[in-house]
Structures are given as C-alpha cells and as structure tokens.
C-alpha cells in the first residue's frame, strides 16, 4: 500500500484506525514496564535508569550465589505445583458434581464457590491467619499450599465446568452398558476428554500461586519466603538490578510453564483423536 493509498484509507476508515491507535497505546502501557524490567536486569549501574548506560551479566552471577533468592524460587515452585495438583483435582471433582448431579441451591452454591475471587486478598490473609492461629497451627508451607489452592479453586472449577457442559454423556452411558464400572468409565472415557481443560486449570493455578503476594505476606516465614514476597520487600527500599534479575527469571518461568502446558495439551489431544 502506497503512502497516498494509506492516507486515503485513514480518511475513510478513520474509526478503525482510531481503534488501532488506542489499542497500540494500550499494548505500549502493558509491555513497556516489562521491557524495562528485563533490560534493567542487565544494567551496569547499581540504581538503574532506563535506558542503562552499560550492560553486564554480573547481577545474574550474583543472583545464583544468593541462597535466599534460590530458596524463594524453590519454595514458590513447590507450593505452586502442590496447589496446581490440589486445585486441579478438587476443581475437577467439584465441576463434575455441579454438571452431573442434581442437588438443591445449585446457583447459590456455585456463587459461594466463586467467592475467593471477590473477597480482597488482604482480608483472606487476615481471616486465615486469625483462624489458623486460633486453632493453634504453626506457620508452615502447608498454610501456603492450602490457601493458594483456595484462591486458585474458582478458576480451576470454571475452566473444567465449561468443558463439561460440552461433553457428550452418551459416550459414558455406552461404556457403562458395555460393562465398565464408574471408575473405569471415568479413566477411559471422561478423563481423556476433559484432560486438556484440567491441564489449563492446573497451569493457571500454578501461575496464580506463583504470583500471589497480598494474602501470602501474612503466612510466610524466613524459611518459607516466596518469590513475590522477596521482590516486594526489596523494592520497598531500592530497586537494584538484582531484583530485576529475579523478576526476569520469574517472567521466563511464567512464560515457560503455560507453554509446556500447551504442549502437553496438544500431545494429549493428538493422542486421543
């Protein structure tokens, strides 16, 4: 398209070009901050300005020497995996009950199940800390796992449930008629069909757990410090390139996990069809 054609196109389709312009602006606002974080992780200055005056890998070397950083990544990964498995399993079971079984007050109960999405995380944190302390439980990694499962559960439930609505139940009837019991039917018929949705639910649960800060700040201890808590307490004072290194690695992890999930999903669907 020549410049002249382009200009005349802008003249006639000005609405659409306006929409494109606003969209580009929105993308800029979403992406610029992340670019600054990644670029500044290579900055040679102690207090980084953007664009940096020089580049170095020094902070990455320091990062991998820092026990606290590595332990935080390890704790977050463990909690994320445990919460993903729990939220995936409970979300699937619950969604199956909601779609397949008759029971009273379904609508109200499903809203009750979604409340962790609505209650501000600070209040979830305060309430859970009061509760666990009152019943005399010591702060441990289990608090984090249990509560991250709670926060991810509504998302896992919704994803699996919307897949189940599309499910052809006659397939299960056929399997049962042919003599399979409920467990076999679930394993051989139902699970392969809804597996991609369960994977999506687990990936999202992992990501929610891995990034959760506001509620978790009340539950962590020195040895169970998670990545977002480390980042927060560091940026409260100054933003060093080291924080940017941690944030960049988190960006990489949060991109890689869903991509791996997507690959597993592809592999599952190609296997069954």
């Amino acid at each position, binding site marked *: 398209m020549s410049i002249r054609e382009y200009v005349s196109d802008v003249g006639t389709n000005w609405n659409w070009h306006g929409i494109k312009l606003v969209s580009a602006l929105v993308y800029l606002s979403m992406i610029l901050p992340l670019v600054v974080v990644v670029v500044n992780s290579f900055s040679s200055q102690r207090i980084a300005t953007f664009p940096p005056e020089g580049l170095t890998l020094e902070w990455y070397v320091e990062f991998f020497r820092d026990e606290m950083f590595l332990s935080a990544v390890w704790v977050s990964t463990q909690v994320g995996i445990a919460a993903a498995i729990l939220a995936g399993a409970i979300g699937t079971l619950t969604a199956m009950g909601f779609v397949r079984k008759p029971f009273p007050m379904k609508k109200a109960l499903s*809203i009750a199940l979604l409340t962790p999405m609505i209650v501000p995380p600070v209040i979830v944190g*305060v309430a859970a800390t009061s509760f666990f302390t009152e019943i005399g439980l010591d702060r441990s990694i289990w608090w984090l796992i249990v509560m991250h499962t*709670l926060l991810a559960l509504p998302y896992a439930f919704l994803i699996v449930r919307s897949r189940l609505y599309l499910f052809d139940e006659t397939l299960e009837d056929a399997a049962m008629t042919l003599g399979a019991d409920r467990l076999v039917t679930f394993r051989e018929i139902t699970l392969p069909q809804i597996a991609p949705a369960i994977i999506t639910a687990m990936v999202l649960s992992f990501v929610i757990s891995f990034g959760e800060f506001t509620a978790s700040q009340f539950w962590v201890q020195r040895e169970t410090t998670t990545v977002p808590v480390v980042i927060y307490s560091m940026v409260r004072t100054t933003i060093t390139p080291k924080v940017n290194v941690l944030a960049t690695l988190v960006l990489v992890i949060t991109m890689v996990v869903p991509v791996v999930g997507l690959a597993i999903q592809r592999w599952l669907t190609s296997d069954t069809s």
Partner: protein
Amino acid sequence: MSSETTSTTAETPDRIESIRQRLMESERFGYLLSPGSGLLWVLLFLFLPLTVIVTFSFFRAGEFGTIIYEPTLENYRRFVNGTVYQRVIGRSLLIGVVTTLIVLPFGYTLGYFLGRSKSRWTPLLLGLVVVQFWVPLVIRTYAWIPILGRQGIVNDFLLWLGVVSQPVEILYTTHGMILGLSVSILPFMVLPVYSIVSTIDEEIIQAAKTLGASDARAFREVTFPLSWPGIVSGILFTFILSAGSYLAPQLLGGTGDRLIAPVIETVFSQDFNWPFAATLSLVYVALIVGILYLFSRKADIEEALEGTQL
C-alpha cells in the same frame, strides 16, 4: 454402613476391594467428594475463618498483640465515631469507580479490536494480553517505579516534547497509583469484551448497515448492546480489584493514598490490633456484599465472574 467398615479384622485384598466397591456405590460419599470437596474447601478455609474474625471483632486488643476475650462493641464504636476509617473506605470505593471509568473505554477498545480484527497476528496479540495474567502482580506494579520517577521515561519524554520545563511528580502520587492500577487490571476488561465481540456475527452488523445505519449507529444499536455481558463482567472485576487493591497504593501511591487494603494490613501486622483489623475487614466485606447484591439485581453475578475465561 460405616460400622461394618470399621469392624475390619484382616485386610485381605478381597476385603479392600469390597470396601472400594461399597464406597463407589455409596451415594453420600459420592456427593461428599463431588461436588462436596470444593465446597468444603471454601467452607473450611474461607467461610470459617471469616466467622472467626466475626467473633474477633467483638473482642479487644490487649498489650503486645494479645486478645482480651471479653465481649465489647469498642471496635465498632471506634469505626462509627472516628471519621478516619470511614474516609479510607470512601476513598477506596472512589478509586474503584475512577479506575473503572478509565479501564472501561481503553479495555473495551482493545477487546473490540481483537474481536473484530481479521489480521493473522490477532492470536499473537491476544496472547500478549493473556500473558499479562500470568506475570505476578508485584512485578507488573513495581515495574512502573523506574518509568514514572523524576528521571523516568515519562518525564524524559515530557521534557523532550517541551510540555513541561521541570520534571513532574507522578510517582508516589494518586495519578501514578491509578495509572499502574489501571494497566494491571486492563486484561480483566479486555478478555471478557473480546470473547463476546468475537462471537457477534458480522452479518448482523452488515445487515444494520445495509438498512441504512451509519457505522456509529450500527455500533451503538447492535454491537454495543450485544457486547453488554462482557462489559458487565469487566466492570465487576475492575471495581472489586481496584477498590481492594494493595500493591499499587503501597508501591506507587502517595502518603494520602491509604486505601482500605493497606490500612487493614497495617492495623493487623504493625499495630497488632487483630480485633480492629477484623472489624475493618468485616465492614468492608459487608459493603462489597451490598454492592454485589445491587449488582445482582441488574446482572447475573455467576455469569459475570465466568467472563474472564476464553
């Protein structure tokens, strides 16, 4: 039925198999597991803790963070009589409304663009929005600090344009906070609008135009009303998340931006006044429930909460 399983003598494989059979056939156990497991989880780890803080709100704090277990209305009196905490809540709700008014037009425009665009880049552009969900909020929030500071890119740009002669204060002000907050919440508006707009049949819009409607009128009378469920979902999330936000006011806001979430955290973790933190939490939750009730008379809450999924 349970009495039989407890009187087990020798755990032979046969015996285990028969227990397994019985459990699978037991309807009550089935319900307990599905849908019961999820409901129990929420009951045990959200509703029960909320009940515990209801009782806390009627106790008072002693010295060194202890709790004096004597019924009192002191906390509620403190909330009703002092204007400080009422103002904090009022300001939080106001920030929620302002953020929603900013996020709505920008988020709608991008959602509409993605839903209508036929470019082969659309899946990639959509992916860029979804990716925002995956990046921890704390990173997306602190990332604004070097951008908005006195020597940040925004000030450099404004100085270069000649709009200002001195760097302007954006970081640690209400404006900076609202900017960071709006951008972090945008995907909650974009995705539901996108998923509705992309299902609107192009032919309906064409039909309106064929019948003589202008682009603007076709949008106003066809596309916009049809995309309403997506807008409702976006508004619900934007308001709830911004009014209850913690990170943006802490990291980007000024000293005047003490919203409800940071205030509750301070009362709880720094003043160690658990009963009063419980009271503030409950007052705020009650307000949110009230707002949701009004909302539910106009729209379906469950449907709105489902909106962010693709």
